[in-house]
């Protein structure tokens, strides 16, 4: 992976963290759901790029995505 891609992912993750903090202080009706979705996007950024899961067999990629979809649906449904 090129240097700029890791750096680009890092910048995106920091920006998403700042957005999560801003959303949590806002009065948006769906703030909690948005925060969970942002966390899922950050999770994908770390697992697929920093951990290089993008290069792995489809089974591992599908397993991570399945976990994330299941986790976020359960959490959001309880909110």
């Amino acid at each position, binding site marked *: 992976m090129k240097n700029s891609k890791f*750096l680009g992912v*890092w910048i995106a993750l920091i920006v998403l963290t700042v957005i999560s903090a801003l959303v949590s202080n806002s009065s948006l009706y769906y703030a909690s759901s948005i925060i969970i979705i942002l966390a899922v996007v*950050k*999770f994908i950024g770390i697992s697929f790029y*920093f951990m290089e899961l993008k290069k*792995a067999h489809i089974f591992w990629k599908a397993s991570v995505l399945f976990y994330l979809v299941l*986790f976020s649906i359960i959490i959001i449904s309880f909110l």
Partner: protein
Amino acid sequence: MQTQKINHKSLYYPPGGILMWIVIFLELITFGMALIAMVFYSKDEPVIFHNSRLLLNSTFGAINTVFLITSGFFMAKSVESYKENNTTKTSLYLKLTMLGGVLFLILKSIEYYGKIGAGLTIGYNIFFSFYWMLTLFHVIHVIVGLVILISIFYGIKKGKNSTNIEDFEAGAAFWHMCDLIWLLLFPIIYLIF
């Protein structure tokens, strides 16, 4: 420059190794179930959860997220440098990775010190029971991750043959797992209630 390559497209060789990924999934399921239980219990006592969440310093949580994400970035750079046989850069990035982990632990200690001083211990209420159990369990993972990284660091310093790429990637995968767990803990404990 010579590079080391593993066929990660094989089902049996995900980056970090199949055993490490089994551990990662077990950890994610364990933390995931505990977080679901926390959100489930918050439905019974929404006021307690909301007021308790306000007692946490979300700025500390956000800064710790930045520390771990940055540490993960340097870990990825370190693995990349190791594959290119660049020992100097590998060591430098590994030191920066460990620095991120140490800064995380320092800030967490300051946070814990404040909470204990204010009497917000594990038995204070159900929210703080979850807070202490989940964050302390995560801190233990970060400490274990740091021990693994120190071991890899000294292995690299000894010489190229003492640490192979599979071991290095397994250690890196464990460290990234700490990031992943924190990415789930931070929004649920510090932000949503």
